[in-house]
């Protein structure tokens, strides 16, 4: 390890830590100085723009304009000639296994199973933990994986899924349990494309499982907060009326938590559609575990196919649009209630 980098880099770091806020503050103060020179009436019209300008410039430069650029590129060939829908035809031709279809199929698996599992586990943990006195401790333990990177999560789970041929001692936790408790042959988990219950290939489920493990704390925390927001009187009244705990959950708690479940669900849908880290680190998209985000990366870096990669990115955007519209509606509804 070369520690000399520290000597050159640390001053840079200090310069940034002190410099950036200082420059911005100077910009705002300087702007205010100029605004004060203006006639009284013009001030409130000019000042807001000075305050939002740096943010708008960054957002325009890194999000808005590039997005437009990508949409344009997706209709061009490598030399910038307009080719209509040709890139999309390449990506979406060859159904069901050609082009981007394996990735689209797997994104669909992520969309359904990742979202459902995270919501179900989050709800289960929130409700169970709410009834024990050591709630905060167990919550922290479930929540901890949220803090670590998906790459570290993948290494943790690669090791959980580790495989040795039958007959040899199994060092992977899951294969050990499978072997010694259920007396079955070990599985290769992340390479096994055979479907589980005819629903989803085992390896896709294995990848999704690792990601679910990492994110459940997120839904648990939010759902738990919603649960605690339910007035106790309501539950008391239901209990006095002779309702059982399960009925109370189904008829009182769950309906009241539904709006929160929906909000968390839409966020998870976006996570599922953007899934990348887990797939990239675990299988690099091999063994039919590809997803759109990983396919885009491969097209860009291994095939140098910018138009194809752009088309995949736009397909990804299109899949997100329904959630995006839902979020905007939700936001406006909340605004209207303000």
């Amino acid at each position: 390890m070369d520690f000399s980098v520290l000597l050159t880099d640390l001053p840079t770091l200090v310069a940034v830590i002190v410099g950036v806020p200082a420059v911005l503050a100077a910009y705002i103060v300087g702007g205010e100085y100029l605004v004060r020179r203006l006639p009284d009436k013009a001030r409130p019209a000019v000042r807001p723009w000075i305050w939002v300008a740096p943010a708008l410039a960054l957002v325009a430069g890194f999000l808005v304009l590039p997005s437009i650029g990508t949409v344009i590129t997706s209709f061009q060939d490598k030399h910038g000639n307009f080719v209509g829908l040709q890139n999309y035809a390449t990506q979406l031709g060859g159904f069901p296994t050609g082009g981007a279809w394996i990735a689209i199929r797997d994104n669909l698996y992520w969309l359904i199973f990742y979202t459902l599992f995270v919501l179900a586990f989050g709800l289960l943990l929130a409700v169970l933990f709410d009834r024990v006195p050591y709630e905060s401790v167990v919550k922290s333990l479930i929540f901890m994986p949220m803090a670590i990177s998906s790459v570290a999560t993948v290494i943790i789970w690669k090791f959980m899924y580790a495989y040795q041929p039958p007959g040899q001692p199994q060092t992977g936790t899951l294969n050990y349990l499978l072997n010694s408790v259920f007396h079955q042959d070990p599985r290769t988990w992340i390479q096994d494309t055979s479907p589980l219950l005819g629903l989803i290939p085992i390896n896709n489920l294995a990848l999704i499982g690792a990601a679910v493990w990492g994110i459940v704390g997120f839904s648990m925390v939010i759902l738990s907060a919603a649960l605690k927001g339910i007035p106790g009187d309501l539950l008391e009244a239901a209990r006095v009326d002779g309702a059982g705990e399960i009925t109370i959950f189904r008829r009182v708690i769950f309906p009241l938590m539904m709006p929160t479940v929906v909000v968390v669900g839409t966020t998870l849908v976006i996570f599922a559609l953007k899934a990348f880290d887990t797939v990239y680190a675990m299988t690099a998209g091999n063994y039919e575990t590809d997803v759109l985000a990983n396919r885009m990366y491969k097209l860009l870096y291994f095939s140098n196919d910018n138009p194809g990669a752009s088309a995949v990115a736009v397909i990804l955007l299109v899949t997100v649009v329904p959630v995006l519209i839902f979020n905007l509606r939700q936001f406006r509804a909340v605004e209207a209630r303000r």
Partner: protein
Amino acid sequence: MSVAAATRAESTAIRFSPQWITERISGVVLHIAVIGLTVAWVVPTAGLLVTSFRTPTDIANTGWWTALSPPFKFTLDNYSQMLSASNLGTGFFNSIMISIPAVIIPITVAAFAAYSFSWMKFPGRDWIFLALVGLLAVPLQLTFIPVLSAFNKLGITPDHLTSMGLPPYLGLWLAHAGYGLPFSIYLLSNFFRALPSDLFESAEIDGAGTLTVFFRIVMPLSVPAIASLVIFQFLWVWNDLLVALMYVGGQASVAPMTVSLVSLVGSYGQNYQLLTAAAFFSMIVPLVVFLSLQRYFVRGILAGSVKG
């Protein structure tokens, strides 16, 4: 009153009556379920941690759980080997160099913008804010190719920046700033708008200017909101793989730890003594941040559960 207290039915049953026994049993089942689920959640991390202290022979031949019974033989060799055999050390410094500015830049920029969105009037304000909310869901993939080519054209590549005497991380800082802004503005605006308007009116009557109100009143009141945003953005950047891979993926001298870790997975796929030590090494900083500032982290999640 917490739901826990309300849901736990007060026990009125007489000792050893059938009802009393059912209540006890369901209590025991509850504890078993809670502890069982928690243990299941902790086992993967525990396995990683234990394995990182075992010898390569042991790792290859026996399960990690066997190390929990005597004779104990743990070693630190994996860690020293991991640090010398990989560029994880460099990755660690790069992660620090990338994360800190990538937190400071967007949050300071967002603070001014959010204040303007919350307490100033200008034409198009609500539409621009709505657009920012929409941007929260837009996949970053959509931006990579044009930003990459712009970086190349403008010379914002690690090599060129170094040759100009500028920090090679500049591109990543700016990209993370741009990507983090919609969420930062959204979160801070929600907080600023919740401040009572009397605060601003009385300050105006006192003749305080916008600057005074912002720096003397709004900022000090916003410390908790900013703290949770700082932690959020820090963990997001520290754990980011995708953005780093895109903009500095090929350059180990500039790439953050997630990139060195993922290349380790590629080159040492089955070498679990190295991988587990490296993974745990990469988890130290986020875990320390998480354990010491968990409260703010949770608050950040609750305040804006839409970060993409």
